[in-house]
């Protein structure tokens, strides 16, 4: 890790901007003292290697990630979550180098599970993906800064997203078990609900999905599933064309309750959505014939053939809108979700704000 000299914080900030080390917004200047204390709080070896981040192939060590976490505005308590997220995107199946280089608009969505959600104050309710939540903003931003400074992403040079999306600044939320009728999502990965973990998946921005329930209508849950399936199968999406990639469905608590009251668990919801999120082959052929394949024009073509490729979680405020996040659906591993435990055993408290 290189140390720069600067006359004061203001000039250090300008130097960091000039070097392309920021996301364009002001950062907390990562002075050696701040970085040292961040590392100290993690209880880990600063030279410990978390993985390599593409496309540059830079080595993500605890120390360098801590420097980026300082820049992002993280508190020491946030660092174990950032370290887990970095380990997650460094997993070869995540295809970070390819994802950073694609022309598609995709960004790693960090979903945090378990007790660390509450202890770090990671929001999962109203506006969890919007401004105003420090932990969400800082943790997601820290991952992005790592992708810039360790992974080497630079717009138009190595990050070739044609337009990008606002979630490329930060894209992080917590899974609040109080909002959900089901077990936390990471239990599906084999974790206990009292363990902390992160799931990371490359995702487009949220696509809003309107549904008005009616408890007097026995078909209410079916209508909700049809509505979600229609947005998942959006015929202009990569998923509809490439028939794969993980699609994330974030149900608001009211919508989740409609499905739970209809007797559905998460697995059933995923199964039904995968079945119903289809387009006739002719619809794809009409738009992009090269992706239609051969067969009957009426064949139902699934956007997400495998129910396991549908992430379903509950977040946001209660109301009329849930969201669907389609995905890039490409790369050698087809845009999978990855997960990592959050290691809290090593962490300790250190003085921070001065």
């Amino acid at each position, binding site marked *: 890790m290189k140390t720069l000299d600067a006359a004061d914080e203001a000039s250090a900030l300008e130097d960091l901007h000039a070097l392309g080390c920021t996301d364009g917004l002001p950062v907390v200047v990562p002075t050696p003292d701040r970085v040292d204390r961040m590392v100290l709080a993690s209880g880990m070896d600063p030279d410990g290697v978390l993985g390599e981040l593409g496309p540059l192939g830079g080595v993500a060590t605890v120390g360098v990630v801590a420097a980026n976490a300082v820049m992002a505005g993280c508190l020491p308590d946030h660092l174990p979550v950032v370290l887990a997220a970095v380990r997650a995107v460094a997993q070869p199946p995540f295809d970070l180098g390819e994802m950073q280089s694609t022309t598609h608009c995709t960004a790693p969505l960090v979903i945090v599970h378990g007790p660390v959600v509450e202890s770090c104050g990671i929001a999962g309710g109203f506006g969890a993906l919007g401004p105003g939540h420090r932990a969400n903003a800082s943790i997601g931003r820290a991952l992005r800064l790592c992708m810039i400074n360790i992974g080497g992403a630079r717009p138009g040079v190595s990050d070739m997203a044609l337009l990008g999306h606002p979630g490329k600044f930060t894209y992080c939320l917590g899974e609040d078990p109080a909002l959900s009728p089901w077990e936390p999502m990471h239990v599906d990965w084999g974790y206990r609900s009292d363990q902390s973990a992160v799931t990371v998946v490359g995702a487009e921005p949220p696509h809003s999905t309107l549904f*008005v*329930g*009616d*408890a*007097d209508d026995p078909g*209410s849950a079916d209508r909700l599933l049809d509505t979600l399936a229609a947005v998942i199968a959006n015929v202009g999406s990569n998923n509809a064309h490439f028939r794969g990639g993980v699609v994330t469905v974030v149900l608001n608590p*009211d919508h989740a309750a*409609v499905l739970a009251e209809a007797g559905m668990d998460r697995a059933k919801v995923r199964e039904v959505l995968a079945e119903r999120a289809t387009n006739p082959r002719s619809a794809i052929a009409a738009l992009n014939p090269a992706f239609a394949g051969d067969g009957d024009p009426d064949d139902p073509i699934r956007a997400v053939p495998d129910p396991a490729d549908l992430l379903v979680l509950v977040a946001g*405020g*209660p*109301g*009329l809108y849930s969201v669907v996040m389609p995905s890039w659906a490409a790369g050698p591993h087809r845009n999978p979700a990855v997960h990592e435990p959050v290691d809290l055993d090593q962490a300790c408290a250190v003085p921070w704000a001065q």
Partner: protein
Amino acid sequence: MRDGIELARRGRPAVALVTEEFWEQGHFVASSTGMPDVPRIELPHPVAGTGEAAMRKVAEELAGSMVAALRGTA
């Protein structure tokens, strides 16, 4: 909330019905529009979509307080 405020501004009896999830926002809107004391009643959340029987129950439980608010006797 804003409908209730607009009616109250025009001198019409009004009471805003606000579900518990939006109660704090109701206070914020009332204060930010300079009418912090505009009448409002808290409803459970959700009301929409809960079915006719559930909505009737809410109406029966709260009709008295709505009328009192409109009469200014709450």
